[in-house]
């Protein structure tokens, strides 16, 4: 059970960065200004890099000879363990950046905690990722502030993005028996324990952005357990996995 819990935890980490990285990569060549094309490609690249580490370790822990690529390209939607937030469509640039910020803020708190993991391999991945994530959250946070406190139109679009995405934030702080096992082994923190730091960070930035956090505390769930993803994930996987599925056994 301990190993299976670790495997599930690593899938959650790796699937978050994989699915979000994929979404961000969809922007290639279509962003509002050249500097953003570069920044988005860079963000996607970092996330895919983190995925290679998390899923690589997941395959190792599982011990069935599956590589990071096997896990990324040959699992179906119900075996994915990313939070729903990561698979939501890009929407406009504002929605993409708001989603990025809401995730980056979580990742920055999470990586900080994981750096002291009792599992050295987890601590090493988190140490590397934390540098990237610190840069991401600064950048996405600045953009959220700039657009929230920009023109009337940009403000309205950012508020709409926040309203749409906020009900997906809570899932990042849900706990179950996988998390309990991780806490017990000293490998990862209880997700609920990140909430205070997260709220402080997000509250500060959204305040500067002159945006209002919705008061409804309801949140969607089902991604990190795999129980019920959104309809969006299947389409993403269709595209992402197509070559591997169509030409099984080929080396690329």
């Amino acid at each position, binding site marked *: 059970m301990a190993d299976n819990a670790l495997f599930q935890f690593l899938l959650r980490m790796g699937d978050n960065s994989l699915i979000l990285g994929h979404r961000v990569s969809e922007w290639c*060549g*279509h962003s509002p200004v050249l500097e953003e094309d570069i920044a988005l*490609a860079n963000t996607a690249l970092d996330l895919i890099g983190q995925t290679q580490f998390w899923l690589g370790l997941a395959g190792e822990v599982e011990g069935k000879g599956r590589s*990071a*690529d096997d896990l990324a390209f040959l699992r179906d939607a119900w075996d994915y363990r990313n939070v729903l937030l990561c698979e939501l469509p890009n929407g406009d640039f504002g929605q993409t950046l708001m989603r990025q910020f809401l995730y980056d803020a979580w990742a920055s708190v999470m990586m900080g905690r994981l750096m002291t993991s009792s599992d050295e391999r987890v601590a090493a991945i988190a140490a590397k990722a934390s540098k990237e994530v610190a840069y991401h959250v600064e950048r996405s946070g600045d953009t959220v502030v*700039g657009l929230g*406190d920009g023109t009337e139109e940009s403000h309205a679009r950012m508020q709409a993005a926040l309203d749409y995405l906020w009900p997906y934030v809570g899932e990042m702080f849900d706990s179950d028996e996988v998390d309990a096992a991780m806490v017990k082994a000293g490998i990862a923190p209880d997700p609920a324990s990140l909430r205070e730091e997260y709220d402080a960070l997000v509250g500060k930035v959204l305040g500067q952005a002159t945006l209002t956090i919705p008061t409804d505390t309801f949140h969607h769930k089902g991604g990190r357990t795999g129980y019920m993803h959104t309809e969006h994930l299947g389409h993403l996987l269709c595209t992402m996995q197509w070559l591997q599925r169509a030409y099984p056994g080929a080396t690329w």
Partner: protein
Amino acid sequence: MYAQMITAEASDEDPKLLEEFQARIDRDEKIEPKDWMPMAYRKTLIRQIGQHAHSEVVGQLPEGNWITRAPTLERKAILLAKVQDEAGHGLYLYSAAETLGVSRDELVELLHEGKMKYSSIFNYPTLNWADIGAVGWLVDGAAIVNQVALQRTSYGPYSRAMIRICKEESFHARQGYHAIMQMAFGTPAQKAMAQDAVNRLWFPAIMMFGPSDSESVHSEQSMQWKIKVRSNDDLRQQFVDQTVPQIEYLGLDLPDPGIKWNEERGHYDYSDPDWSEFFNVIKGKGPCNVDRLNDRTNAWEDGAWVRDGLLAHGRKKAAARTAAE
């Protein structure tokens, strides 16, 4: 400002200044932004550097077409890094163009109005995964042959941009070749994709050097000013000579039955591409011209609220800072 420059007549330029300018070029001195230069030199450079910058930006699209379908995490990362480099090249080249007195926004506007071009190669589609390897190997490969020559170009900022960009382009070409090698030596289906990619992209790639010297409109003056350093045919031959053995190494059929080693010349002979196709693509009738330009203009228009929003925020911050002082 650029629009005025385009229509400005150069006829009243001081012959003495012109003579001194040519003498500097002949001595292989670099021309720097603050130096005097003939209007036509400035215009030619703006056109060439601007076009090059646009090519880097539009060039993101055919490769971006496969980022979401890249078959492994590593291939996806390599492609993302490459496309990020290309956007960086665009930024760097727009800055070089700005030293000549034209803004990036003006250049982008001219592109969107169809008044400036980008490299025709990007008006061809990427249809299978091997195309991504072939683009790196053949398209970046052809660009390198061109750009290594341009490192010696007379305009300082352009020359320096080429030196910096070439390093990354060589990396792209090597990675591209590695990707297509993986396909050519892979399963029969993969090999077929590699062959298909080479067949489709060969002629467009050798067209990248432009029409034959006898028919190239801008060549002579550009050579004299060392904006251009080697002739189109010369560069094309170098590319063919370096690429044919690579195709053979991959075990693929040559994409042109006219390719034959010519002992006497010490070069490969090859068939002339269909230049009517080339001119058609330039006129907007390539397979992707309309879609590519629509992609760019839509991205620009859809992003207007973002640029406006960030600008407005910048102004508010600046105003708050002044008020606090």
